[in-house]
């Protein structure tokens, strides 16, 4: 249990790192959005999962789950609206 | 474990650096939009600072006002000053 939590936390941190690196390295808004929406959310999911395991209280776990769902919803929606706005403003996606 | 006990100060140090950095940029960035973004970031960091100061009620208020609403309000304000400096560094 303990080790599972630890691994989960570590994975979470890893994805956060990946998200930030993506944000900094990727060439344009659209691809950066990929990095943020996917990596950070999953990272947060792992992290919260690890914490929930650690605390062991179902109530806390549920609250953390609710939080995660909200972040997912927000982040996916935001990434869509930003991508859409970028396209409609005429920001051409970066191409190799 | 000795190294571990140094961690919280390191955390606070980093937080303080971030706070000062964002505050400085928010005030001294010439273009309005980046300044506003820095200010939003500053607000979020401030909520974390209140957390470190063990003031959860202030943190809560800061999260609601500073992180969420100030951003929206400033965006609305920027929109009214359109054509000035968005998209410019």
């Amino acid at each position, binding site marked *: 249990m303990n080790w599972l939590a630890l691994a989960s936390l570590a994975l979470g941190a890893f994805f956060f790192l990946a998200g930030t690196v993506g944000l900094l390295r990727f060439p344009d808004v659209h691809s950066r959005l990929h990095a943020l929406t996917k990596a950070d959310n999953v990272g947060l999911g792992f992290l919260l999962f690890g914490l929930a395991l650690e605390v062991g209280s179902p109530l806390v776990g549920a609250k953390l789950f609710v939080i995660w769902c909200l972040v997912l919803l927000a982040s996916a929606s935001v990434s869509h609206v930003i991508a859409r706005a970028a396209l409609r403003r005429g920001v051409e996606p970066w191409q190799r | 474990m000795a190294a571990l006990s140094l961690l919280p100060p390191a955390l606070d140090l980093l937080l303080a650096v971030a706070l000062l950095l964002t*505050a400085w940029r*928010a005030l001294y960035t010439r273009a309005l939009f980046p300044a506003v973004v820095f*200010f939003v970031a500053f607000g979020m960091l401030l909520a974390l*600072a209140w957390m470190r100061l063990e*003031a959860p009620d202030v943190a809560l208020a800061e999260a609601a006002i500073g992180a969420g609403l100030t951003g929206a309000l400033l965006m609305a304000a920027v929109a009214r*000053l359109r054509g000035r400096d968005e998209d410019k560094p």
Partner: protein
Amino acid sequence: MSASSLLPLLVLWPLAGGLLGLLLPRGAGPLLLGVSTGNLALAVALVDALAGAGKVAHSVGGWSTPLGIALRADGLSAVLILVAGAVAPLLALYASAAYAGRELRYFAGLFLLFLGALNGLFIAGDLFNLYVTLELLGLSAVALAALGGGAAALAASLRYLLATITGSLAYLLGVALLYRATGTLDLLQLSGQGPALPGGAVAFALMVAGLLLKAAVFPLHFWLPPAHANASPPVSAALSALAVKAPLYLLLRLWLSTYDGAWPLVAELLAAIGAAGVLWCSLQAVLQRRAKLLVAYSTVAQLGYLLLALALVPAAGAAAYGAFTLLLVSHVLAKAGLFLAVGNLARRAGHDRLDGFERVVQHLPLSASAIALAGVSLMGMPPSGGFNGKWLLLQAAIATGDWWLVAVILVGGLLAAVYIFKLIEHTFGGSDRPDATALPRRMEWAALTLAASAVGVGFLGQPLLRLLGGVP
């Protein structure tokens, strides 16, 4: 009415007036005048009560400190409340002629709330309460600065907003540190404790930095000139005269009471900043081509004098404390008068460029006289409040052997003369423009009264100092 109840009334009365100002669809002019006059009456009553008791206090909610909040007034509070109270009806009079309709309504609401915040700040005896009043004051100042202005005023006030919020937050962080270290926010309970506390120095640095930013003290003044110069005249007057004084007042309280005037380095730093501000911003004022910017830079320069006086208080005692107060009072009056007068000129000319004022001295003699009288006080010429303050400041500097400060004070006075006379010179000459619109007379009289009282307080030095009492 007991003397102690005066303190909460000084806050509730203008706040209620401000709320009504925003809520009521009409009648803003009479409301503004009535409430600010009532406020003056309360201020006078407070001065009267203090003349007997020396100090007045009120425990909010009946809770004792550190649990509750204490409101306290001593001589300094009373002087400041009195001068703010005296300025307010004149600004109200001016505004009731300068604005109309919805602008007047918003001015009435915001200005009265501003006044309430100011009163609240001057009687607050609690660090957090001071923060809240400071925030209220800052925000109402920002709101006033944007009132009726165009895009330039809006952009300037947005930056003002960022500055004032950042300043408050720095102050608040410092307060939080003090609270962590002591468990109390009460100024009396904290008095003298600051320097010895763990983290006390950091808290001090944070609070001072925040306050200096809010007070627009050089070199943190960048936000002030655009904000004050782009606002409309009664607002510029309120901001330059009153808003920036409050943080300095608080700085004085903190340093002298909570920190017991500790650390000689602080005094030296404050003096250095003040001196640099006096010289640099006076020079900037001299170089300006727009009248309102000139006046705004003059404000920053004059704040430098206040800082000099403040820095000398621990070493020079009563002379410096008196200098701080008298300089502050006279600057409040002079700057309010000056901004109103320049506003009149600008209103007539349709702009505030110095080289296009079109012989206003002929058409607005009262405003031109107001500029001259306010100038007398700002230059520190006798007889004027400005001279009294400068005299005490010189005495303090000579007594402590700070000859370089003496030089700064004199050079600053000379530079002030240069920019004031630059202003005056441009009211002479030029061509006639008979088609310009006429101004309501009370706009001229309000400016003149303020400016004349800046000179007149030169004869009230003794009573003011008596009311002020000794260094707290």
